[in-house]
């Protein structure tokens, strides 16, 4: 459902050209839970941004749900982000001035749902992440773990085909991190495809498949051979 072929991303500034991704080819199947690991600066976030249509590749082909998305205009890309993709950020990115209910409501309003539909979806999503009782709270009144769960509710409320998470536990202590990971696992078990960037090998091990990036390229020799049934250790070996 997510298929990248020879994706490159070059950042040009006045002084330097950074090759953040170098002809990266990768596909993620429906229902998969993929963890992307790699050292800092290896291109993980760049990969996630391109996958989530937050930025465009310099070259290469990218198709989502079987359609080529490279030629879409800004409005069409916004629409796809809104309908098909749920984002989870390292620093939660909740809107500080809106309560949890209104935060989850934000993408639903952009979607154009009516009030009753939105309310139903918000309540269901908050219920799923265990925050139904906190919907009138401001983000600042919640713990980091609760904030991240609220952000997950926001990502889930629109019923996305897949979730993209960039270091979702990076700002959390290990207990909260495990709770968030449990939640992501649960969501994945209910059918949502998840691509998660993480530093934490313990969390990565809980994904179906690990992909390691190194200097904008795959560190594992043949990512296409990796499948849901492949033991995690096999993927990790080339860099171990």
């Amino acid at each position, binding site marked *: 459902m997510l298929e990248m072929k020879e994706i490159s991303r070059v950042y040009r500034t006045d002084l330097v050209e950074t090759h953040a991704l170098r002809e990266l080819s990768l596909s993620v199947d429906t229902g998969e839970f993929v963890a992307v690991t790699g050292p800092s600066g290896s291109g993980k*976030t760049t990969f996630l941004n391109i996958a989530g249509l937050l930025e465009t590749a310099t070259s290469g082909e990218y198709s989502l749900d079987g359609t080529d998305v490279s030629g879409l205009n800004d409005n069409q890309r916004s629409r796809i*982000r809104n309908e098909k993709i749920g984002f989870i950020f390292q620093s939660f*990115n909740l809107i500080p001035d*809106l309560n949890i209910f209104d935060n989850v409501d*934000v993408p639903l309003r952009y979607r154009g749902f009516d009030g009753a539909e939105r309310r139903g979806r918000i309540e269901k999503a908050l219920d799923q992440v265990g925050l139904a009782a906190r919907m009138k709270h401001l983000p600042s009144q919640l713990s980091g773990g609760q904030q991240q769960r609220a952000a997950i509710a926001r990502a889930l409320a629109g019923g996305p085909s897949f979730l993209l998470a*960039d270091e979702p536990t990076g700002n959390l202590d290990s207990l909260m991190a495990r709770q968030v990971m449990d939640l992501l696992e649960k969501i994945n078990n209910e059918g949502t495809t998840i691509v998660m960037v993480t530093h934490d090998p313990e969390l990565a091990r809980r994904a179906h498949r690990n992909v390691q990036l190194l200097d904008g390229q795959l560190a594992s020799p043949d990512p296409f051979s990796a499948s849901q049934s492949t033991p995690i250790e096999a993927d990790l070996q080339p860099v171990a």
Partner: protein
Amino acid sequence: MEFRPILSAMLRNKTGSILVALQIALTLSIVVNCMFLAKQRIDHVNRPTGMDVDNIISVRSMGFGTDYDHDRTIDNDLRLLREMPGVISASHSSGLPMNGSGSANGFAGSPDEDASRVTANYYHVDERMLDSLGTTLAAGRMFRDVEIRRADNELLNRMPQQVVITQALADKLFDGEPALGKRMYDGLGESAEVVGILEHMYGAWVGWSDFDQVAMFPQRTEGPHIRYIVRAEPGKRDELIPLIEKTLADSDRTRLIRGVSSMEETTRNSYEGDFAIAVTLSVAVGLLLGVTGLGIVGLASFTVRQRTKQIGTRRAIGARKRDIIRYFLIENWLMTTIGIVLGTVLTIAINYSLASAFNTDQLNYGFLVAGMFMLWLLGFMAVAEPARRAAQVSPAIATRTV
């Protein structure tokens, strides 16, 4: 995108918005009251004068030397002026209306000592003065040729027998009763018969509220000063001015011709103060709008910069550029509207206190409505660029900032 979440987000960061809303409120009330005052000045300047101001030329003559004969000079001058092509009418007069200098006296409608007196500007004029000023009679007649007392008349410093007065003066003197044929008295018990009523004209001082109470008496002024009021055909005024100066100066060497000027110019000078006020108020309004506009731009730019990450996040979760623009337009509109509502209350309060303190007019609410639209438009123009910049924030910001 609806108002409620925008409003609640705005209310959680209220300091800046409240300050700018207050600024908008103050601006509205000052702008509306200033526009109203400026408009009143302009209306004041543009009041119908009842005279053909644009085509009138005024000439002053001052005799000197032993050979000077006041009556003879006036006779000759009027003959010369009336013969000039392009001249409709020429008269002698003790003064030029609306030029800031003139004479006034208290008059009454009855000989009683304790009769209430009405102050009026008065002019000594000839029988053609109505034509020369382009003013019209509402009733009665103008003076006859024979009624005009010449300068050598020994009764010159006594009140003439006839008077022509404006309707405004007649109404004051006779309490609105028909004035024609009645007598008008001065403070010394002398009187003149009201033979004509003028529809409308103004006296000497543009700032005087009883400026329209004017009387004309049929006589020449004492020498050696005299003034002529010359009415030119439309379009002929400016070419006549130098011609009149030369013709009169050449015709008689026993006097000086001075101050040949258009009534339009003198009137404009008289209204200089009003113009200055109107201009000052307009400049103040312009500056204030500019400063308030900059205030809105400043606040909007600040919030856009402060919310870069939020904007990127909104874009990442599905906002189109136009949704971002709309967000800032609505937010700004809400703030502007709060300011406008406060400002409306303030405007009415200011006008009310001005009206009771200085006896000024009640505000014309058209100005308030105009002011509201000006500020809405100002708010929109001020936020347009910051909003456009907000829409340029890349959705990738969402993952790139901590």
